């Protein structure tokens, strides 16, 4: 089921923030249509790793290749490369001065150079996919957190990325709003989207992930299918982490 060359291949990623060594040689290789889940305690470097994958964070060393494009090559047009990598943020980061439709259409117009009509047609289609086309003319402040996050997903998928990065997409949401976002993510996965998800939604990981990475202190400590990671964890730190989660 998972074949072909990887869509995302990050190798030997190190990241220093001043004297802080946040990533200590991490590999992340994602095959087409694969859903990779990254779990771990806060401060383990999961979000930093994700942000290195579209160079929102500059890795101190290592290589990142997405869809055959070397992201760290100085000659690479980073803006062109980022079009192929969708990203969804913990705090949604919708543009507050634009409607939902405007948020989704902006990059279509300014990056892909589509006409207003084309961009809006694509944006409406993307909003339909996240079940929010009826909110096309609402401003972010008029939407619930869950709806804002779904618009943010629409903004990313409208550009038809080859891979989607989710950085704790449900962590800022009230519990009753999480389900709607996870449903959209599940549909996205079923449509064949390649996804990397940093999240604490273990139920979702168990149900939807092909592979789970457990990170701690800047390293991938354990890696495997969800049944193994959750059912038969080997590393002490992973066992401890899962035990702590159960207690909450």
């Amino acid at each position: 089921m998972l074949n072909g060359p990887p869509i995302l291949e990050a190798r030997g990623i190190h990241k220093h923030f001043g004297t802080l060594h946040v990533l200590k040689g991490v590999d992340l290789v994602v095959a087409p249509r694969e859903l990779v889940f990254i779990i771990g305690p806060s401060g383990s470097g999961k979000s930093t790793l994700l942000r290195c994958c579209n160079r929102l964070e500059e890795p101190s060393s290592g290589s990142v290749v997405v869809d055959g494009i070397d992201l760290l090559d100085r000659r690479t047009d980073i803006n062109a490369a980022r079009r192929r990598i969708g990203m969804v943020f913990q705090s949604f980061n919708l543009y507050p001065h634009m409607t939902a439709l405007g948020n989704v259409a902006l990059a279509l117009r300014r990056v892909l150079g589509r006409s207003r009509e084309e961009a809006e047609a694509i944006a409406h289609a993307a909003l339909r996919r996240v079940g929010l086309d009826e909110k096309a003319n609402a401003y972010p402040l008029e939407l619930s957190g869950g709806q804002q996050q779904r618009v943010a997903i629409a903004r990313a998928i409208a550009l038809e990325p080859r891979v989607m990065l989710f950085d704790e997409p449900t962590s800022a949401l009230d519990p009753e709003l999480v389900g709607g976002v996870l449903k959209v993510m599940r549909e996205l996965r079923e449509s064949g989207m390649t996804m990397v998800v940093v999240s604490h939604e273990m139920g979702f990981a168990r149900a939807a992930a092909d592979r789970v990475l457990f990170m701690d202190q800047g390293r991938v400590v354990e890696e495997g299918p969800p049944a193994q990671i959750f059912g038969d964890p080997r590393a002490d730190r992973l066992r401890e982490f899962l035990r702590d989660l159960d207690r909450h």
Partner: protein
Amino acid sequence: MSNWDNFIFTFFNARVMAEYLPRIIDGFFLTVGLAALIVASGLALGLALAVIRSFRIRPVNWLIVFLVDLFRALPPLVVIVLIYFGLPPVGLAPSGFVSTWVALTLVLAAFAEEIFWAGILAVPRGQWEAARSTGMGFAQTLLWVVLPQAVRLTIPPLTNRTIAITKGTALGSVVAVAEILSQASAGVSFSSNPSPLTLGAIAYLILFVPVVAFGRWVETRFAWRR
């Protein structure tokens, strides 16, 4: 003559007022024109400087910060006088009108740059990241995502500062700009009666009360929209 009659004769002398009203009206329109020029060029220059500063080219930013601090520190009158009396020896002879326009433009631009810059910094980092992650470049992100939010944040402080500096057009009277105050003082000298100054004050009120009211409206309008 009673004290009251004396007061009316001094400050509300109908004959003197009638004689000098046309000049005050001329001064009024000149002040409006000068103020409009200062606002347009000062805000445009201030915004341009803030945008240049956001590219964070170190030597350029040092220069911007130096100039901005310079013109925020100097009293506007000193800048006007420096341009009017200081440039002719080097071969430039700007009129009083141009001197006042340029001087107050520089002062307004300096304050506006600081305010716009603060606005740009106040836009959360996540806005930049979201836009950049969709493949938008730095300049596109600035233009379409950051500046619209920054300008909105800066409208209330900017309006107040703009009003304060625009009132500085009265300083033009020192370098013979025929604006309201200058016309009024001339009237006082010729007629040996202060009534033209009363007219001048009224002209300033007619000009600036609506502007101040507009500023107040803008402040409330934008206070709750975020």
